């Protein structure tokens, strides 16, 4: 990543409330094309909520999300997809009764990729789904469903990709492999935000991390520096470890 690249996504003072609970409480960060940004933080710190707001599942209650310089807060998901944002889900959400090939076909047909979308064959081969292409998605194991979720997103050729715990539940060999794939995607200029609990994985692939606590960023920078921060240690491990 070139440090002076203009950010493709800018999140500023984002607020999202559920009743009286502030899931996001003034969160700000940005991500540049080709950059892999990690979002880390304890459970309930707002990582997934942030992704849900950016991908249009929830409308923000305050603050601003801008993509390519235009405000996108509150736009419908399919419009954001057409604009170049896509995501995977923590629990993969494939179209269970459709075959793997049909799952991808829907996204290829309706994603309105701005540049030529990847080919079906390419996606099936690169994400190890060739063997199961004609099977219903319900037959896949959880790692394969995650890959299907990812290929569904990639078929729309996003410029900003949000990965919500893609690595959880993968074995070490699969982790290495998917880390390589994510880096290769970033190398094509795609901005990628990774939400993950596996710190080794975060360390391996991200350029920069944002540490969240209670819906706000408390640290921004390299993961190695984050783990030396008193406040970060406090929210992860509890006050007595921070001494």
């Amino acid at each position, binding site marked *: 990543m070139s440090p002076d690249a203009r950010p493709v996504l800018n999140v500023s003072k984002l607020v999202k409330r559920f009743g009286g609970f502030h899931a996001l409480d003034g969160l700000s960060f940005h991500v540049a094309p080709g950059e892999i940004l990690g979002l880390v933080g304890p459970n309930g710190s707002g990582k997934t909520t942030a992704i849900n707001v950016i*991908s*249009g*599942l929830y409308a923000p209650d305050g603050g601003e999300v801008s993509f390519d310089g235009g405000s996108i807060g509150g736009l*419908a*998901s*399919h419009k954001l*997809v*057409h604009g170049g944002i*896509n*995501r995977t*889900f923590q629990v993969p*959400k*494939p*179209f*269970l*009764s*459709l075959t793997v090939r*049909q*799952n991808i*076909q*829907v*996204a290829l*047909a*309706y*994603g*309105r990729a701005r540049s030529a979308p990847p080919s079906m064959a390419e996606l099936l081969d690169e994400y190890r789904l060739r063997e199961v292409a004609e099977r219903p998605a319900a037959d896949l194991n959880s790692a394969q469903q995650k890959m299907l*979720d990812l290929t*569904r*997103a990639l*078929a*729309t050729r996003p410029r900003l990709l949000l990965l919500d715990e893609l690595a959880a539940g993968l074995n070490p060999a699969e982790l290495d492999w998917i880390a390589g794939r994510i880096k290769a995607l970033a190398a094509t200029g795609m901005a990628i935000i990774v939400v993950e609990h596996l710190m080794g994985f975060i360390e391996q692939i991200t350029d920069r991390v944002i540490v969240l606590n209670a819906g706000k960023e408390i640290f921004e920078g390299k993961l190695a520096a984050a783990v030396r921060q008193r406040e970060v240690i406090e929210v992860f491990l509890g006050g007595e470890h921070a001494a």
Partner: protein
Amino acid sequence: MPDALKHTVFVLAPLVVLFAVAPGVYQNHLLLFNFVIFLILAQGVNIIYGFTGYLPFGYVGFFGAGAYGFAVMVMHLQTPAIVAVLAGGLVGVLLGLLLTPLLRLSGAYFAIANLAASLAVLHLIANPALEGITKGPYGVSLTGTFNPTDAYYAALAVLALTVGGVVYLKNSAFGLALQAVREDAVSASMAGVNVVKMRMIAWLASALVAGLAGGIYAWYVSVFYPDNVFSGEFSIFAIVFALFGGVATIAGPILGVLILYGIYNLIGFTTPQYFQLIYGLLIMGLVLFLPAGLVSLATRRGWHVP
């Protein structure tokens, strides 16, 4: 041969030809007409339930509204029957538009709200205060347009149109996107599908089909009461036939109508007690062992069913 053409040549065409020649060799034309009407309604249910997952318990609302759309056009504007049938379809679509907020509901909530809506339409039309327009509860008599032969072929045309629509859904990216919405609306939007718009199109298409069928039914029978054309049996039969054969396929609802409505007519009138017994057992067996319908006997074995 592309699949869409195959489905047209081997499913749609034989079905339409069968019912086009049947009146020449079989005397009970009313029965044939009812078969065609139920084929249309079962495919209409297939469009909305099979492809989008909304179970329309009040599907008869569109049918009855179509029948009264026909009646009003003929009684008050003296239009030709064909124009009145088209008006029946339009009334179905308008009612569909009015009911689009129901699509915010899902599952049983949608089914019940839709049932309630159809009853509301029935009682609106059957209201004595509207006697000047709909003849209220006293029924309509449309002897001027009575022409069962033309009405039968009009029904056949609507059947061809409806099955053609399902062939399209089965073979197009549009139909695939509808099924994606049915499976997971959030993921579908992340595939770039405009979920609200897709649901609405399927909903209005199935309303159109039922409205046209209702208009043609009014044309065929020419004398009817609100309770006849809003009878819950239309909804229930159409749903059971579609489910029995297997939804989200072209052949499933057709098989369902031919088999179940066939059995109904074979034993339903002479020995109704056996009919109810057999029907009950069939439906129980189906729900327990073949929840995806008859066609799943084949698809389970990996055979392709159109």
